[in-house]
């Protein structure tokens, strides 16, 4: 039944050096473990098991405790995400204004099943999130830090195209 295959060599030495420097700059790394995990996720994009284990060993905290924290807070992710994370708010206000149809349309257009972390080209991930506090704009969609309000299902392909173009221009 064994299923735990950890390959610590996937962790980039430069990334670990930067994380180490951050941890060493803290007066009490164990007491600031959430900040340490934030930093790790900021550097790596997500928190693979290997990185959680590294943080555990480096801070001397139990791996189970680290994994408990990472799986409790929805901000932390154990799976990689695309360049653009599309967060569709499914809080009460957005939901009654048709957020589910918007969410379904994103999944359909990007051919992304619910349990898939990102599109094959690594460009998009989809999240359904609870109320992001912009009910006046319901239904609201956030792409990384960019907010789209009053989104209708028909606008979905346009939002996707806009970001595809942006990514193409950037590269």
């Amino acid at each position: 039944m064994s299923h735990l295959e950890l390959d610590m060599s996937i962790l980039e030495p430069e990334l670990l050096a930067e994380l180490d420097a951050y941890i060493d700059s803290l007066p009490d790394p164990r007491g600031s473990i959430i900040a340490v995990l934030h930093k790790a996720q900021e550097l790596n994009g997500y928190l693979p098991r290997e990185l959680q284990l590294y943080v555990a060993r480096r801070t001397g905290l139990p791996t189970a405790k680290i994994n408990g924290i990472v799986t409790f807070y929805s901000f932390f992710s154990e799976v990689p995400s695309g360049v653009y994370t599309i967060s569709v708010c499914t809080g009460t206000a957005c939901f009654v204004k048709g957020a589910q149809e918007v969410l379904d349309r994103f999944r359909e257009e990007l051919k992304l099943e619910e349990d898939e972390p990102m599109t094959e080209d690594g460009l998009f991930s989809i999240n359904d999130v609870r109320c992001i506090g912009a009910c006046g704009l319901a239904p609201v969609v956030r792409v990384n830090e960019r907010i789209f309000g009053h989104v209708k299902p028909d606008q979905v392909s346009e939002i996707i195209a806009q970001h595809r173009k942006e990514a193409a221009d950037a590269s």
Partner: protein
Amino acid sequence: MSQENKSAGIPLPNIFDRPANTVSLTINDIPVTVNRNSTILEAATKAGVHIPTLCHLALDGFDIHSETSSCRVCVVEVEGRPRLVTSCSEKVVEGMVVRTDSPRAIRGRRTNLELLLSNHPRACLTCAKNLDCELQKLARDMSIREITYKGERKRFDIEYSSRAIIKDPDKCIMCRRCETMCNDVQTVHVLSALGRGFDSVVGPAFHADLGETTCTFCGQCVAVCPTAALTEVNETSRVWRALHDEKKHVVVQVAPAVRVAIGEMFGMAPGSISTGKIATALRRLGFDAVFDTNWGADLTVVEEASELVSRIQNGGPMPILTSCCPAWVNFIESQFPDMLHIPSTSKSPMIMLGAMAKSYYAQERGIDPDSIVVVSIMPCLAKKAEAARPELSKDENQNVDIVISTREFGHMLQEIGIDFPNLVESDFDSLMGESTGASIIFGTTGGVIEAACRTAYEILMEEPLERVELTQLRGLEGIRSGTVMFGDTPIRIGIAHGLGNARRLLEGLRSGEYEFEAIEIMACPGGCIGGGGQPYHHGDMDVLQDRQRALYREDRNTPLRKSHENPMIRRIYDEFLGTPYGEKAHELLHTEYTAREKI
């Protein structure tokens, strides 16, 4: 407080006639005075009012407490409070008026229990904890006849790959007692709540199998689990199969702590000594030979004491650590890999007896060792994992083939309808069944090192030890120390039980805070009497004390009290092993330790 009372127009209670550290209140109109800082639950117990609990765990003798207040089946009504309060965590205040019997309190407790049951498999008939389950008992006590709440039920895989502990999260009620034992008491830190909300579950990091973690299989999580979310891997069917296989020669051994606990499963008082009844019961089950792990313990003492003497004479390494507790061995291998040179290399009594059964006994009786099946009845779940260690084998043969717990043994007896309390008594087979009082006390904290000192003293001093009871080593404190004088030389002994205490002791040793010549460590609180495979004590610490007293009583009642005086031990050295701690003894009775890096 006084201002609040004035504004409410309530006269101030007269607090001057009582010691300032007590508080008076009423529970169901019964007046009761308790220490400040008591909980309502503690006050209710004093007032003779029973409040049901489930997640709450208080092992006062060991200062072990789990207070998550998560199950909410202990809620009561407090006058002036808008909501029901959890009596296990709410502290009493002066003049408090508590009702546990109001319709609202009763309804609240029922609702909370029904909600727990609505997310539970309710497969009691075929459950390992049937009639031994705290959730089931609550459902009966509260006369639950139907569960009004219908809804989704959590579904997780059952994990049993360790061959020692089964984890079945569907039966978990998230009381977190296991986390308290694993993290706070044992400091092994394998378990944590993972995920959140309805999907949350208690388990190791990354949902790893227990065998992939630093789990020591001490089984203390199993000992406190109120349901069957954590139980032992049941091996009784393998024992039955072996017993019914005519080609197999099935021998059995019983650990010291089993004989002072098994009776509890048959309504006998805790601390009843059942040695003779066990021997009779095992013959009824059909074992071909009935051995006593105590004999193995006597052999271990002779080897370990010889090793201690050798280290004293040859300048170390010091101190020597006892190594008969398999959970402790698992712990030091993963937590203190830099200290693996100090434990005694002696195998545990169980493994020594197994090794002797497949060599000496096989030769003596002219039996093919391959046809011998060694079954061990142990108070312990880590013994299951120990028996499976590849290095504890010879020529493809494990020293011990099957390990069952005290509980599994009790269930086998119940299965074939043995009237245990009324069995006539008989003796173990003489060849590997005769033992001394020294071996009996292996089952309690402090016992192994006391037994080892009795023998080491006589080897080193070459004179009889007059006072065999080394009471300075006895007790139930988590970390103890005592000195035994070997002539003019003080031998300083450290003792720890519970892995958290073991960790503190080893860290103290590393830092130079402690200096000892010998150390005994037992993973379970109390030693093997409190092992993870023993009949459930359900939080009653008196049970452990009764078991401990019984072991010391049995030691006193045994004619021979020093392991090296056991005639059957002398015989095996004369006829088979040669000298203690010699070449053949090394080959058969000693092992080595490996550092293990796990999550």
